[in-house]
């Protein structure tokens, strides 16, 4: 009896450091989660009071009234155009890297380094680049060639902001697609080749369909990332306010992300703007969160599928 109690006490003493470490690290984890929860709760609670169909579907009235329809439409147009550019390029890059490039070829390595670095370039630098390259060089070139130098494309617009964002988000697509392509078992490729399919046929008809989940995940993550960015579009096309929705790629546009910045700094009546600001933030956050959540679920599902197939 007694020796058992002693034993228990000794064990407890021996476990004390482990408990201390567990408590300390768990506290740190809890703090991070707490920050997330407070942020989400504050935004959800304040934002939910404002969000209504009317808010989402009407135009702003000053900065203290009305809705955010043009900002939603702008964000959708922006990310759609961005996706059209970024996804094919990203998927092609991933296919080349996993299916074609010799494992340790210099080119493949350089491409990988560039993609990793592209993902780390500060977003404001993309803004500088978009202005210097797309707006004042490509745009000007188009105007000189086709419009007698009249300013049509050499001005910030939807197309330039989308392309700037496409470069920024392409690494996301590449990484997700590559991961999915690698998860496709070798045997499937071998079987396809053994049945007489060419490499291209194998890639297009066998490997890529298997990896479609990964491609989709990449596209969704890219849209989510692109929708939240402000710095790259600030100088390449976003407008403070528009009376009409964008109808052409060289129109300017409003965006949810930039609208948050505008509402937070430009309103003449902060108290009146606050609800609209929260509503806009909640819409933006809801959009990016839903997209991220979809990506997480999709990724888990596709991983599960590959495992089941093994």
């Amino acid at each position, binding site marked *: 009896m007694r020796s058992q109690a002693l034993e228990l006490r000794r064990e407890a003493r021996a476990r004390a450091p482990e408990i201390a470490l567990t408590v300390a690290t768990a506290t740190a984890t809890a703090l991070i989660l707490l920050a997330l929860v407070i942020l989400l709760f504050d935004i959800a609670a304040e934002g939910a009071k404002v969000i209504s169909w009317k808010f989402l579907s009407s135009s702003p009235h000053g900065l203290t009234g009305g809705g955010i329809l043009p900002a939603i439409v702008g964000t959708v147009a922006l990310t759609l155009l961005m996706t059209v550019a970024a996804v094919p390029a990203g998927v092609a890059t991933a296919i080349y890297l996993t299916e074609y490039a010799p494992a340790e070829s210099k080119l493949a390595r350089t491409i990988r380094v560039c993609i990793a670095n592209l993902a780390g370039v500060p977003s404001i630098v993309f803004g*500088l680049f978009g202005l210097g390259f797309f707006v004042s060089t490509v745009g000007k070139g188009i105007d000189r060639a086709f419009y007698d130098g009249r300013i049509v494309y050499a001005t910030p617009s939807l197309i330039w902001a989308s392309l700037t964002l496409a470069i920024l988000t392409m690494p996301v697509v590449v990484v997700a697609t590559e991961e999915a392509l690698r998860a496709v078992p070798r045997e499937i490729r071998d079987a396809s080749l053994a049945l007489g399919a060419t490499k291209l046929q194998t890639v297009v008809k066998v490997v890529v369909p298997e990896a479609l989940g990964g491609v989709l995940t990449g596209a969704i993550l890219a849209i989510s990332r692109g929708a939240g960015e402000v710095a790259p579009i600030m100088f390449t096309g976003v407008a403070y306010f528009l009376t009409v929705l964008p109808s052409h790629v060289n129109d300017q546009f409003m965006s949810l992300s930039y609208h948050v910045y505008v509402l937070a700094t430009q309103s003449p009546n902060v108290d009146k703007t606050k609800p609209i600001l929260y509503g806009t933030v909640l819409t933006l956050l809801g959009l990016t969160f839903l997209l991220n959540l979809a990506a997480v679920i999709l990724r888990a599902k596709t991983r599960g599928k590959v495992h089941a197939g093994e």
Partner: protein
Amino acid sequence: MGEKCAEFALRAVAVTSIAAIVLIVAFIAREALPVFAGTGVTEGGEPLILLTPTPLPDGSEQFLWQPVSQPPKFNIVPLVVGSLKVTLVSLLIAAPLGIAAAIYVSELCGKRQRELIKPTIELLAGIPSVVVGFFALIVLATWVQRAFGTEHRLNTLLAGIGLAMAVCPVIFTVSEDALQAVPRTYRTAALALGSDRVQMIARVVVPAALPGILASLVLGFGRAIGETMIVLLASGNASLVSGSLGLSTRTITATIAQELGEVVVGSAHYRVLFSLGAILFASTFVLNSAGERVIHGLRKKLGTA
């Protein structure tokens, strides 16, 4: 024939990422080069970018970022100091939290907790930075000033806390991967030799994962110094040179964001802003290359690359 064409086309597209980096370097350099090449001087023949303090009429000296003054004073010291200061504050907050959380999730909690916590923290990384900046400006600003009695409502500490929310997931994710990459055999060997779990973690697992943990800090640093919207909204943007955390500060990124829209293309001010972009690009490029190299090695070990 079709095979060759397809491979050629894919390779051509894959090369766009190289082209993108090259174009970014080329176009930022094109606008910035005159400043660095020494031809970038003001009308009076003074160097465009200043690094030394300007003497004031009262005999004192100050580092001045006054770009629309006559003559303009483009002293980048306040901006560089500001960026470094905010970044360091954010790392001092995010690093202990992120690494501790990584240890907890990788080594101490159960599998179910891990599967819940990891994606949740990664969700934090998905919050747009303008939203974090908004949260810092509207909600945190009042709390921080009340709690710490800071002189300025928008200040270095507030911006650092905001940044920490963005940087923490980066440090957490990379550190956690690094810990997971430590082979099982290390752990079993340590336990078999009679060490308890704490000893195992402190003397075997963490040291083995150290390169990855350091890489997480380097990447976190790169993320923090390049972040724009959080500091633009939360730092107050006063171009002070000071060590105080309670005072407002101005970063390189926020300066570009505030001023680029205004400048006439090709003007001195425009070129100086591109030079700031070049400095930013170069420093994050170096940091990310170093960090990525370590991570690439890690992924190989983990078998995910």
